């Protein structure tokens, strides 16, 4: 049941006609558990007859079991969805609810209000036309009200309702109401919320005062009830009046004769014949047809398409446009840039790493973005600007960012669609931040990489990996190089950046002047250690496959590497087995005395005492050994767990 209307029973066709033309209001409710937010939403659903009998029966039984309202219905139980949340008695995510009345259809984003859920609230607010700020009449404007106001204002929500709830607990006092309203408006001025965009309503969600019906106890209030306001508030739809923008989601090419560009129009109006400009390329053309299927034949063409419609455009010229480009009106295009000032709301448990390359998705385009250390972080409670070197979960900061290519964009204040973006971590794939583009940085104002050096960490971040030195040691013929090769192939296939330094090939070049005396062996390892240092600094996972018989040299290599990044891999093959294999015929030569100082024969091999990994090549193949090493790399945190 959507709601009660006499038309349903008497004239269903008329009802459908009326419903068809209803517009939709999306709103968000901001408040914390105790403000009665869930109770309010539950009541809106209940009063608009959105609750079915079977649901009502469940509500009655739940109210008895876990309700907080004694024998009365606990409306909050209608909206607290997930089982874990119900047990804890709090809402911890964004939930969407739907209802409609004779006037409008509604989608409510129900989000938690605590500071640790700032990201959830921002997500809910990103698509909202209106925000209800819940205030407990006993407590007045609290820090959280200020925080919620700041966030919904940041997200560009224009209409605010200050719902002063629990009026029944302050004896429906007008004086108290006026006091809270005046308090709030003073604060609204401070953060730039226009007073005419705020409507304060006294109500009691629990008792139903001024939710749907005018309350007799609040007869001094002459404004609309909450529902009446939701039904009539003008939804600011200035998107059509703005310049034309359509991010291209998909290039539609069913055959050689048709080439169209599909997307949802972000703003403006388009007609066949209109001149357009594709960005960032800047190429121009005119619109041939607007394809908008309804009958799925040649008649599916429109004379005009407007903001929020999903269409396919064909052009009169063959210009190169791909997914992620923005088609604009020719004379009113977006800006194009690769360096920006932006506001970023951090949404991940792992803090932002200045200098790390993240993926940035803006419209249908995904590029690589590097964020500089924040200029400041906004304290969402005091609204002060604080110094910070990074952004942590729920931090809102002002940052400069730099992209690996140009994108077309508008300032968020001008266009919510072409001015917004998300950041994605390249390793975990999590959505780590939402962002608001402010303006492009001109050359003169290029990013100052405050306190950011291009160092080992930065280079590794760019590759999305942890550098490490994997040091294979073992007798000649033990299988070091075979395993190292197999491992490198696997790492490469996983998208890791690697380099393999092998005894044989390094000796042909860099160490061509060295023999096999003890002194030369030490020098050999010293050079390898230095070269592998450079590789590590380049951010590579470096594999070194050397007999490296002496503990002291291996220790020197280890000591040069940061803790946890040196992995000694002992390829433990008994001499008899290695000699039996004798792939290169070297043991035979050494036994015949043709090779001097051969490790294991007439030169000692000092086995590692505590290698990170020990491989028994008698029992496992090189391929299995490589798999085992990869397992260890996960354990050591060198490779990220998916």
């Amino acid at each position: 049941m959507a709601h009660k209307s006499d038309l349903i029973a008497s004239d269903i066709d008329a009802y459908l006609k009326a419903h068809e033309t209803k517009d939709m209001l999306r709103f968000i409710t901001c408040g914390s558990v105790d403000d009665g937010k869930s109770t309010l939403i539950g009541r809106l659903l209940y009063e608009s007859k959105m609750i079915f009998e079977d649901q009502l029966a469940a509500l009655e039984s739940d109210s008895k079991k876990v309700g907080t309202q004694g024998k009365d219905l606990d409306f909050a139980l209608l909206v607290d969805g997930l089982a874990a949340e119900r047990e804890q008695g709090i809402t911890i995510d964004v939930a969407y609810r739907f209802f409609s009345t004779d006037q409008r259809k509604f989608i409510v984003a129900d989000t938690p209000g605590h500071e640790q859920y700032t990201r959830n609230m921002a997500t809910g607010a990103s698509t909202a036309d209106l925000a209800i700020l819940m205030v407990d009449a006993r407590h007045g404007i609290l820090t959280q009200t200020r925080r919620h106001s700041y966030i919904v204002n940041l997200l560009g929500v224009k209409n605010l309702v200050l719902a002063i709830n629990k009026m029944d607990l302050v004896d429906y006092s007008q004086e108290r109401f006026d006091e809270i309203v005046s308090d709030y408006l003073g604060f609204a001025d401070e953060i730039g919320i226009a007073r005419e965009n705020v409507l304060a309503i006294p109500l009691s969600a629990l008792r139903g005062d001024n939710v749907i019906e005018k309350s007799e106890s609040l007869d001094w209030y002459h404004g609309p009830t909450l529902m009446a306001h939701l039904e009539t508030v003008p939804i600011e739809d200035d998107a059509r009046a703005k310049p034309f923008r359509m991010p291209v989601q998909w290039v539609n090419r069913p055959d050689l004769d048709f080439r169209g560009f599909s997307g949802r129009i972000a703003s403006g109006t388009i007609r066949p014949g209109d001149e357009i400009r594709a960005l960032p390329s800047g190429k121009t053309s005119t619109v041939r047809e607007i394809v908008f299927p309804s009958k799925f034949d040649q008649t599916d063409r429109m004379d005009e398409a407007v903001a929020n419609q999903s269409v396919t455009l064909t052009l009169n010229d063959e210009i190169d446009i791909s997914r992620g480009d923005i088609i604009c009106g020719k004379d009113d295009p977006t800006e194009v840039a690769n360096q920006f000032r932006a506001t970023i709301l951090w949404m991940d448990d792992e803090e932002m790493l200045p200098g790390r390359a993240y993926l940035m998705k803006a419209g249908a385009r995904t590029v690589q973005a590097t964020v500089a250390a924040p200029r400041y972080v906004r304290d969402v409670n005091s609204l002060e600007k604080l110094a910070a070197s990074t952004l942590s979960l729920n931090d809102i900061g002002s940052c400069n960012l730099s992209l690996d290519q140009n994108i077309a964009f508008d300032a968020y204040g001008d266009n919510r669609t072409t001015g917004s973006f998300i950041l994605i971590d390249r390793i975990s794939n999590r959505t780590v931040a939402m962002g608001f583009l402010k303006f492009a940085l001109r050359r003169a104002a290029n990013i100052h990489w405050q306190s950011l050096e291009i160092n080992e960490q930065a280079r590794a971040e760019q590759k999305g990996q942890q550098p490490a030195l994997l040091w294979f040691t073992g007798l000649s013929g033990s299988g070091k190089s075979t395993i190292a090769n197999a491992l490198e192939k696997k790492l490469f296939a996983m998208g890791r950046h690697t380099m393999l330094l092998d005894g044989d090939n390094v000796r042909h070049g860099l160490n061509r002047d060295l023999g096999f005396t003890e002194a030369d062996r030490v020098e050999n390892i010293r050079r390898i250690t230095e070269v592998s240092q450079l590789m590590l600094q380049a951010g590579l996972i470096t594999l070194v496959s050397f007999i490296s018989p002496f503990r002291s040299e291996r220790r020197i290599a280890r000591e040069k590497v940061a803790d946890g990044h040196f992995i000694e891999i002992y390829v433990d093959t008994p001499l008899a087995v290695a000699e039996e294999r004798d792939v290169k015929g070297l043991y035979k030569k050494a036994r015949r005395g043709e090779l001097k100082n051969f490790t294991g024969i007439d030169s000692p091999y000092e086995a590692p005492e505590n290698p990170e990994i020990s491989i028994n090549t008698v029992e496992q193949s090189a391929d299995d050994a490589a798999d085992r090493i990869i397992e260890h790399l996960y354990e050591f945190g060198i490779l990220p767990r998916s």
Partner: protein
Amino acid sequence: MREVVAEVEQPVMLYSVGKDSAVMLHLAKKAFYPSVPPFPLMHVDTTWKFREMIEFRDRMASDTGMELIVHINEEGVRQGVGPFTHGSALHTDIMKTQALKQALDKYRFDAAFGGARRDEEKSRAKERIFSFRSEQHRWDPKNQRPEPWSLYNARKQPKESIRVFPLSNWTELDIWQYIYLENIPIVPLYFAAERPVVERDGALIMVDDERMPLRDNEVPRQEMVRFRTLGCYPLTGAIRSSATDLPGIIQEMLLTTQSERQGRVIDHDASASMEKKKQEGYF
């Protein structure tokens, strides 16, 4: 839908033959027109669907020109799993939940469109439009990605997959209204007609084929009935109705006092049952 097609390798549309699937398929045709939607349709057939559903399914697939994949859990068939012999819970798990996982693994689909709506059920209200599943097809409600604006992050680890719910923000009324406005074909079972039914445990069950074992006192009789949702015929209760056209259906829907899922036998356990099923891999 365009985002999914642009960002994943092997998308598929789960086509359950019901009204939500009908709307989803219609939207797909629109999104890609004049191209044919660039993914196959897949139906997980429990072998107990209404016969009219199967006829309708085949006709729709052939009309759209899309490939239709029908997957049946053959192991379940070999074991003779069915709702009458094994009960609704086990039947649904083996022939639907497990079968779906099998099919997704078999064809290596990494994104599957589904017609679920947030207004259907409380745990759905919090599910994202792009909803990620582990290699074992599990849903982790505590670890969902935020979806601000309409920016969808479709990146995933190699063995993960995505369930995508394009109709998340539609209500049951929106679905019917859209079917009405756009003249979208739906299975005739949604319209009232004389059908052979028996009344069993408070539900009107249609005797769709000879596999239905009748109890001693049960004699199928012709009644004017229709269905609000469609699934396995033994698990789907009919309602008495005279609504033979869309306005009539919508009128009944708006005046009813029972929610849509009420006709489904599987939701009748504990109130958090859907959430539990979803964590186990139910769509």
